[in-house]
C-alpha cells in the first residue's frame, strides 16, 4: 500500500501555508475590468532605474541570454567592494534579498534553534524560519517600532539570529544610532544580528545608523541591501548580504550559485555607479508624494503612519480588503495590511504626483461611500 503523500511531508511543512503572490497586472486588469493600473502596492520606484542601468538593459543583446552569468556575481561584488571600501569577498549576492535571508538562516540554525524578529514586519524572516523547521519568536511592535528590550528578553541559548528591519516595512520606523549601539552591545555577540536595510537609501537623517560601519565594531552584524527598491531593479531580483569575511564564508556554504541572472548583475553594477542624482530625484518624488497625501489623510480624519521609506500606512474606516477591491475597480492597487497583522490598514507606495492624485481621488470616493454605507446600516 502506498503512503499518502502527506505522510512523507514534515509536520512543519504540512502546517505551513505557501505565500500566494498577486496575479500579473493584465490578469488583474481583466478581473477588475480596468484599462490601467497604478501599482502602489509593492513600494517600487516608479522613476525606473538610474540612466546607466537603463542603458545596460536597453543594450542587452539577446544572444547573451544563452550564456551563464557569473556564478558568484564577480564584477558586481567588486563594484560593491569599491563602493563600500571593503573586500569583495565580504559580499554575497542573491536573487533578491529573500534568497540571502534563506541562506543566512540555513547557515546558522539547526533543529531546536530560534530566530527573533517583530510580529509586524517583512514576513519573509518568519516564513523562512518556519518552513525550515525553526521557531520564529515574534515580538510585538512598540509604538510601531521594533522593541529592543523585548527582543533581548526573548533571547535564549538557542537564539541564533535577530532580524531588525531598519527602517521597518511597513511602518517606516527606525532605530537611531544610540538605540542600535545599545542593542548590539547587549546582544554582545551571542547571536547574528541581521540589519535589513532595504529602504536605507530613502533616509538622509545623519542619526540613521549605517550597518556597514556597525559591522566593523560588531562582528556578529550582517547587513542586507537590495537593488529592488531605490535602484528600481525589482524585476531583475538582485539583493546582497555583507558581513565579516568569516561570517560570509559560512553563509556562502548554504548559498546557491548562479542564482542571479546576467542582466541583473550588469544593471545592478551600472546602477551603483550612477546613483547620486537618481537617489536625490527619488527622494524628491517621495517627499512631494508625502506632501500631497498626508494632508488628505488628516482631512479625512484617518490615522496614518509615515516614517522612512517610499510608503505610508493609513488606517481605513472599513475592512482593508474592501478598500482594496473598491480601489482596484478604479485602477489603483494598494497593499492590504491584514497579512502584516495590521488589519484595517493599507500601505500606499509614494510615487509621482499624477498617480498620487488619482489614488486620492479614488480613495476619497471609497471612504465617503463606506462611511455612508455604515451610517445607512446604523440608521
Amino acid at each position, binding site marked *: *500500500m502506498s503512503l499518502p503523500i502527506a505522510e512523507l511531508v514534515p509536520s512543519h511543512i504540512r502546517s505551513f*501555508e505557501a505565500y*500566494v503572490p*498577486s*496575479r500579473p497586472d493584465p*490578469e*488583474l486588469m481583466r*478581473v*477588475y*475590468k480596468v484599462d490601467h493600473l497604478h501599482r502602489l502596492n509593492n513600494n517600487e520606484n516608479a522613476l525606473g532605474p538610474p540612466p546607466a542601468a537603463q542603458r545596460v538593459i536597453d543594450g542587452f543583446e539577446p544572444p547573451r541570454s544563452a550564456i551563464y552569468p557569473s556564478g558568484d556575481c564577480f564584477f558586481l561584488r567588486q563594484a560593491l567592494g569599491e563602493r563600500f571600501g571593503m573586500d569583495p569577498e565580504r559580499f554575497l549576492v542573491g536573487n533578491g534579498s529573500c534568497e540571502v535571508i534563506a541562506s543566512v538562516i540555513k547557515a546558522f540554525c539547526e533543529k531546536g534553534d530560534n530566530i527573533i524578529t517583530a*510580529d509586524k514586519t517583512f*514576513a519573509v524572516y*518568519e516564513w523562512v524560519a518556519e518552513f525550515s523547521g525553526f521557531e520564529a519568536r515574534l515580538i510585538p511592535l512598540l509604538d510601531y517600532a521594533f522593541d529592543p528590550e523585548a527582543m533581548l528578553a526573548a533571547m535564549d541559548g538557542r537564539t541564533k539570529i535577530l532580524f531588525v528591519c531598519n527602517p521597518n516595512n511597513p511602518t517606516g520606523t527606525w532605530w537611531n544610532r544610540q538605540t542600535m549601539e545599545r542593542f548590539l552591545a547587549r546582544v554582545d555577540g551571542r547571536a547574528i544580528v541581521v540589519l535589513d536595510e532595504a529602504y536605507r537609501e530613502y533616509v538622509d537623517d545623519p542619526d540613521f545608523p549605517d550597518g556597514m560601519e556597525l559591522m566593523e565594531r560588531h562582528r556578529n552584524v550582517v547587513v542586507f541591501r537590495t537593488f529592488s527598491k531605490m535602484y528600481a531593479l525589482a524585476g531583475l531580483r538582485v539583493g546582497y548580504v555583507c558581513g565579516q569575511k568569516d561570517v560570509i564564508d559560512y553563509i556562502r556554504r548554504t548559498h546557491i550559485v548562479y542564482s542571479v541572472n546576467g542582466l541583473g548583475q550588469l544593471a545592478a553594477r551600472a546602477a551603483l555607479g550612477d546613483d547620486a542624482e537618481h537617489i536625490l530625484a527619488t527622494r524628491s518624488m517621495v517627499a512631494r508624494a508625502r506632501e500631497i497625501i498626508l494632508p488628505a489623510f488628516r482631512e479625512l480624519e484617518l490615522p496614518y503612519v509615515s516614517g522612512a521609506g517610499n510608503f505610508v500606512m493609513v488606517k481605513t*474606516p*472599513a*475592512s482593508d*480588503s*474592501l478598500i*482594496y*477591491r*473598491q480601489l*482596484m*475597480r478604479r485602477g489603483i492597487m494598494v*497593499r*492590504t495590511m*491584514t*497579512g*502584516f*497583522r495590521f*488589519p*484595517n490598514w493599507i500601505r500606499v507606495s509614494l510615487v509621482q504626483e499624477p498617480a498620487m492624485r488619482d489614488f486620492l481621488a479614488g480613495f476619497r470616493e471609497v471612504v465617503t461611500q463606506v462611511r455612508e454605507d*455604515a451610517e445607512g*446600516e446604523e440608521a
Partner: protein
Amino acid sequence: MHSENRLILELPPDVAFLPAATATAENAAEVFGLDRSGALKLSLAVEEFFAYLCRFAGREEPLRLTLSQGGTFVRVAFRFRAGEVSLRALNFAASVDLDEESGSLGDELGLLLASRTTDRCSLESSGSGVYVLQAEVDRNYPEAEPLRTPQTLCPPIRVPRTEDEPLHAGLLQHAALLAAGHYPVRSCPNSFFRPARFADMVAAGQYQALLAQDGADKPAGLLCWRNSGPRAVVFSGPYIFDDSADQALGQEAARLLVERFLSMVARTEALCAFSERPTPDVPKGWFERLGSLTLRNEAGAESAGKPQAALFRHLREDVGGAVWAHADLEPFLTRQYDRLAFSRDILRVEPTRTSRLPQHSLLATSLDRRRGLAILRPLLDGQDFAANLAAHVQALREEDVDNAPDILLHLDLSEPWQAALFPTLTACGFQPRLILPHAGASDLLVCQHVPADS
C-alpha cells in the same frame, strides 16, 4: 497502518471479513474515548456500511476503512470505488417502503439504521467514481445551566496569547456558559451548552478560541472559530460579559478579540472569515455585510423575525474567481457581486439531463433543534432530486409542527451540477439570500426556504 489517533484497515469487499471490520471498529472506538454505548453505535454503522458496500462497491479495489479520533467524536470513513451508488437511505427524509418489491429493501434498511444511530453521516465524491462515506459518533458530555449572573469588569482588559499557553479548560467552560446565558440560543454554538465538550473541541483543534480577561482575571469576552472548507474560517462571537451601563470595557474586549483573531488567521491558509451568527458586539468597521437571513424561529427569543446579518472579510487581496450559475440565478449573483465589489466570472450552466442522472439523490442535513435551524447540502444529484428536496422540507417541518425550524440550503457554486439545481430549489420555495465567498470549494450560495404560508 496507524498513527496516534488514526487506524487504517484495508479489507476485500467480502462479507466474510465483516467480523474483522466490526471488531476493529468497536475496539478503536473505545480506545478513542467512546463509552460502551457509543462504541456499539459506531460498530453498528461499520457493520451496515461494510455489508452494503460489499454488495455495491467495485470489486477491483479493497475497501479502505479509516477510524479516527476527532477530539470529541470518533469517525469511521469508508473509501470505495463505485460506478453508480444509491445511498438514498442516508437522506434525512428517507424511509424504507416496506411494500417495495425491490431486493434492496434489506440493504437500505441497514443504511437507514446506521445513519440514524450515528450523530452525523456524510458522503464525499472525488468525481472519478471514488467515494468516501463517513459517520461520526460523539462522546457524551453533560449539559450545564447557562450563567446569567450580571458581570462588572475591571480594567485592564487583556487577551492572553494562546500561541504561548493553551487556554485553561475551566476558564473556557466558564466563558461558554456565560455566553450561553448572555446571548440568544441562535448566536451560540451548541457546544456552549455542554461546556466540557466545547473545551475539548478547543483542545482538539476543532475550534480555536480567544478569551478576554479583565483585571481580576474574570472572563470578559470570548470569540471562537473553525474552518469552513479549505479556505475560510467561520467565527462565532464576540461574546462580551459586561453588564455595566456604559460597557466601555466590554467594547474594549470586543475590539481586542477581533484584532487578535484577525492577526491569528491572517497568515494561515484561510482567504476569508465570515459569520452567519455575529453578535451585536462585533466592532464597527471590521467586517462587511454580506446580506441577511430572516430568522423566524428563535424559540423563546425576542428577536424572532428579525433579519440576521451575515458578516465577512477577506484576509488577503481578492484575486477574483469563477462560479457556475443557472440563468435564473445570474441576476442575483451579478447584483450581489457588484454590491460587494467581488470580481467573479459567472459561468453559465445548462440544466443536467435527467435521463443521465442516477435514480436517487442525496442531501446532507444538519439539524440543530436547540437553535431551530436546519442546513441542507446536496451531495449527489439524482432523478428524484425535486421530490427528495420537497420530502426533506416536509420532514423538517414535521419535526416540530408548532415551531418548525428555519431551513437553509447551501449550494457550492464551484460545482456545475449544484448550480444547475437552482430552478428546482426555487420551485420548492427556496430563495437566494446571500453569498459566502470561498466558504466551499468556491463561493457558497445560501438559500432560505420561505414557506408558502409565510
